[in-house]
């Protein structure tokens, strides 16, 4: 009879059950569906990012995980138990708030100890844990300060230590670095990753900053209008976006609409209005529509004066477009060019400045050949 255990029974396949399962969750504010039948699994030990424009519902979703909002429909399973209606102070999750929400009347030490005291931890253990947390976020010597006597970066660390102190099953981070300046933000991102790996904890971060999401997260869920557009690793999201919206939301992209003409030997020919016929690598999943969009990231578009050195084997497969440079933006590490194609459309290209003195730099109004390989193109159906 042992093999008749139905699926989902505790212990049946514990390894496959995600730590956090969001199951068809709906949250309405008046007529607006802030979160619309959203389902998502987060694995134990994962650093998961919810990315999306403001108002996409990502913060509402996070607040439902913390318990500050109750879903109208659906379940939130944490370790197999539905916590959708459990009060925030009874959940084994903690949140790091956007503006830190440090208690201004308490010292750094008391802020960090706040959650431990509520958990009824003995005093000596609290002292040990606080010291551990203070060391973890490198705040030694500031224990007796009040939040008002700390810099922005220090406050951020206190907030992090406070939310980690109870060793939550899931740590929720609501735009945790938004208030820091760029340099500090970048170094803190790396520290956050390091910390997450060292503690082996599950982090769910909400951010509108795609670079931040791509830097810190193992997987990213991109949200728009209350649902997930795509859930993927940062590389997949960038190199294999599932829709035009994702392609345009994550990074820069050139999009050309066209019709599928013919296919041969792993190549598809797509005739576009703006960029002639483009040869693309045949996607793994067969194309079902005839009207599609070809997407090429700017850094995959190379510029040259005469086009690529001809190589008899695959020269015919390389896409070549001619035009005039209209705009040059030097950004330090790379330079971006806008090329007005002869068809009238604009193509963007960016090239790494690998040499200090670049004889290949192009000027505005210079005539160039832009080229890219079929493998660098993504065919998008929606």
């Amino acid at each position, binding site marked *: 009879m042992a093999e008749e255990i139905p699926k989902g029974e505790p212990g049946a396949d514990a390894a496959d059950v995600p730590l956090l399962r969001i199951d068809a969750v709906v949250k309405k504010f008046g007529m607006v569906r802030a979160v619309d039948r959203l389902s998502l699994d987060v694995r134990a030990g994962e650093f998961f990012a919810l990315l999306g424009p403001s108002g996409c519902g990502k913060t509402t979703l996070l607040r439902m995980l*913390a*318990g*500050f909002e109750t879903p109208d429909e659906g379940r939130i399973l944490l370790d197999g138990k539905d916590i959708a209606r459990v*009060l*925030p*102070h*009874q959940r084994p999750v*903690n*949140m790091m*708030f*956007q*503006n830190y*929400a*440090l*208690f*201004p*009347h308490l010292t750094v030490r008391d802020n960090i100890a*706040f*959650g431990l005291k*509520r*958990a009824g931890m003995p005093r000596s253990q609290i002292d040990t844990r606080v010291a551990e947390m203070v060391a973890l976020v490198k705040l030694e010597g500031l224990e007796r300060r*009040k939040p*008002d006597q700390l810099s922005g970066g220090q406050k951020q660390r206190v907030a992090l230590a*406070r*939310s980690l102190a*109870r060793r939550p099953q899931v740590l929720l981070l609501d735009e945790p670095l938004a208030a820091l300046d760029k340099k500090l933000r970048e170094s803190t991102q790396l520290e956050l990753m390091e910390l997450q790996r060292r503690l082996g904890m599950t982090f769910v971060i909400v951010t509108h900053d795609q670079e931040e999401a791509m830097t810190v997260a193992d997987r990213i869920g991109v949200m728009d209008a209350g649902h997930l557009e795509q859930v993927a690793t940062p590389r997949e999201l960038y190199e294999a976006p599932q829709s035009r919206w994702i392609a345009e939301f994550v990074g820069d992209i050139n999009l050309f609409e066209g019709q599928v003409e013919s296919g041969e030997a792993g190549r598809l020919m797509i005739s576009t209005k703006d960029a002639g016929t483009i040869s693309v690598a045949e996607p793994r999943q067969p194309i079902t529509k005839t009207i599609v969009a070809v997407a090429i990231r700017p850094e995959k578009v190379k510029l040259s004066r005469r086009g690529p050195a001809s190589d008899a084997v695959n020269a015919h497969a390389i896409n070549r477009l001619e035009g005039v440079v209209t705009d040059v933006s030097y950004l330090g590490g790379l330079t971006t060019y806008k090329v007005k194609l002869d068809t009238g459309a604009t193509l963007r290209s960016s090239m790494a400045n690998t040499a200090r003195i670049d004889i290949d730099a192009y000027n505005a109004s210079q005539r160039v050949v832009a080229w890219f390989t079929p493998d660098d193109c993504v065919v998008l159906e929606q």
Partner: protein
Amino acid sequence: MSARGIFTRPARLSAIAPYLWMVAFFLVPFGFVLKISLSQTAIAQPPYTPAFDLTQGFGAFKAALAALSLDNFRLLVSDNLYILSYLRSLVVAAVSTSILLIIGYPIAYGMARLPRRWQGIAMMLVIVPFWTSFLIRIYAWINILQHDGLLNKVLLALHLVAAPVVWLSTDSAMYLGIVYSYLPFMILPLYAMLAKMEPALLEAASDLGASPRRAFWLVTFPLSLPGVGAGVLLCFIPIVGEFVIPDLLAGSNSLMIGQTLWLEFFTNKDWPVASAAAVVLLVLLVAPLVFYDRLQRRQLEGNG
């Protein structure tokens, strides 16, 4: 820096203006009161001696100065009447302020948690009684509380009492009047403090395992303490010197210091003793003021 340098700059002038105001309208009058408190009562015009008269020359001035004494203060300490008045004033103020805090805090808390657009309306409702003269409102209470007043009529109609209850000229009526009159002074500073509190702090407390009740005592209440301090002082200090409400609503068997002072001044025509009583009252009230000042300074340092 020379005085000239100070006065040619408008910024400096505006900085010392409050001090000029204090000197002209507080320090100088207080000097008069202090001087009278050191004089002796007399049947004269003015009703005390000595009176400084600078036209009589320096010798007379010196003689007048020598005639000043602390007799009135000794009288205040030796006579039960005054000590009891002071005590009663402090007790009445303490009890009233406690009642005000207990009633005012929940109201202010409720106001601060209303939706934004309702908060303005709630604020108006708190302030609206000020549009009617304070005295008229107290007389209205007399009307309500008297033997055949509204309160007794309602109680009789509801069969809650068999015969009219004596409300007027009791301590209950006085406390009612004081609490009613001072409630806005308690609510407004509390509301100001509670309204500016970040809601995220309560969410953080609850996220860290505090039940709503604990979150209130651990976060909301401590953060509202400056408002509590302001409200308590705004009520306590004027209630200690309150005269009108106890005079109109309380019985006449025990007096607050304001009433005693009034009696000395107008009935006994004993300006020096009345002045001495006023000086002692002021000294008594400086203590809570200093306390509040220190509290505020600590608050400022905390934010600095």
